[in-house]
């Protein structure tokens, strides 16, 4: 409600103190009480597309705000939070194709609006040596045994196998003079440092889960370093 002076003064007339006081009184009332309910919008005028409550998850290294989600976590350096995969769990040596999660390497975020999200990931692993006898076709030859790692979104039941990346077994086996070390060091064979980025669209609200999964034909695979991070933008 706008202020309208109750009295108007005309040239050539006496400026009446009562009228001046009346205008001032009306102004005082307006300044103190002039904001009537009609001036305030009862309905919501700023919704979540304008303002998102900030959220910081220090454990997962994630930050949420108006723009979306940013952040992630890593292994903390070589061997700090090393993880693993193994053919004993994937069944990769025995004709199975079971993808399993790589322990620790998952994030979960709350999607509050339609969003475009980039999922960045990286890992560094050593595969084998695995010189167990081959038994084709169930057990691949030593030099054909692979560990595949892929990102997944939502559930490990849906690995993004188009983005799977392989590392071959350290297939020279264990050392001839000492079985405590591989015949060939990992800087020759059996070492894989891979990275990748995939795009995911979310059309509604919900929960987004992002992680790494693996399919291994190699007995022992150690992830020395890994990193998962999201970069999501609300539309």
């Amino acid at each position: 409600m706008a202020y309208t002076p109750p009295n108007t003064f005309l040239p050539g007339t006496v400026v009446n103190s009562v009228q001046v006081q009346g205008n001032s009184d009306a102004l005082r009332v307006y300044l103190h009480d002039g904001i009537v309910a009609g001036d305030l919008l009862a309905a919501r005028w700023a919704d979540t597309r304008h303002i998102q409550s900030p959220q910081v998850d220090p454990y997962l290294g994630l930050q949420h705000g108006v723009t979306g989600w940013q952040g992630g976590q890593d292994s903390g350096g070589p061997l700090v939070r090393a993880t693993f995969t193994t053919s004993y769990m994937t069944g990769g040596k025995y004709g199975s194709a079971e993808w399993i999660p790589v322990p620790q390497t998952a994030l979960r975020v709350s999607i509050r609006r339609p969003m475009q999200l980039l999922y960045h990931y990286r890992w560094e692993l050593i595969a084998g040596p695995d010189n167990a006898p081959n038994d084709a076709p169930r057990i691949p030859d030593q030099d054909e045994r692979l560990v595949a790692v892929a990102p997944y979104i939502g559930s490990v039941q849906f690995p993004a196998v188009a983005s799977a990346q392989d590392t071959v077994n350290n297939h020279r086996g264990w050392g001839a003079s000492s079985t405590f070390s591989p015949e060939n060091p990992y800087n020759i064979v059996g070492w894989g440092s891979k990275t990748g980025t995939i795009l995911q669209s979310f059309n509604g609200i919900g929960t987004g889960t992002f992680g790494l999964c693996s399919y291994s034909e190699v007995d022992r695979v150690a992830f020395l370093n890994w990193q998962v991070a999201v970069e999501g933008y609300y539309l």
Partner: protein
Amino acid sequence: MSRIIRTPYQPGDLADPARANADFAAFSQPGAIDGFNLRDAAIDLPQLASNIIILNTATTEVGTGAAGWQHNTPNIAPSSVVTPATKTPLVDASGNPTPLGPFAWNLVAGDVLRVYWDLSVRPKYAGTPWVGNFGEIDIQIGVTSSSQVVNLGGHCWLISLQWDITNASLTNWTEVFGQTGYTSAVGGTVGGRLADSPASVPVPAWKLSTLNLLNGKWGGSSIEIDEPTGWTAANGAWYYLPAGPITVYGLRLVIHGIYNPGQTATENYLILDTGVGGNTQVLEYDGGTLTAIHQRTGA
């Protein structure tokens, strides 16, 4: 939003009706204390840009895609025996190209184009194609004056990013901004500067090692051994900050090789080694992904 600033009355001022009217009218519109001034303009919503950060996104499976992850029937990219190298675009299991596009993304200054890709690959070779070709050096044998020839093992395939900035027909592929085509004459062959290779990813063609070296000298009892690379993956990323308007219609990956590190007095290069090329030297590839995102970085 408005602020009402009026000159105060001073002792001796005349009671001017026009001034008194103006003083009171100042509290009327547009200086009213109402919903617009207190709610809308006070928070200055008109000053908040409504544009989102992401302008365009696209992603696609390249090569044999998800179906190829077990490498049952990989595709093959040949090596070159002539210069310059033929660049082989990725195709699916039926031989159809797998570019990202067509689309028409209008980039302007202040935007950024970000591209990410990965691809499963396996270099294949027969025999010892590196013998007698680029990268060979002599290693002294023990304390004698004789030497052993070994190869540094730096040969590699390249996976490079190309774009079409002509039209949506996707028939006018060129190297992306800042990326060399490896066609410069250098060292008796052709190549490109490493500094001009932001959108190329190398894949080792083979792994050579000499386990019997000691203090940089040949031990004499072990020969140079080669280790097949096996199935592995190549992955890359490329960013582009346009200086002015440009329209991008598509992106694709190409495979070419085999290259070897080379140098002039002032520059490091990757140079094409046609001597190691041949029918038995190929790069097998399967599936991968190619993702692009067009974002606004400024206002």
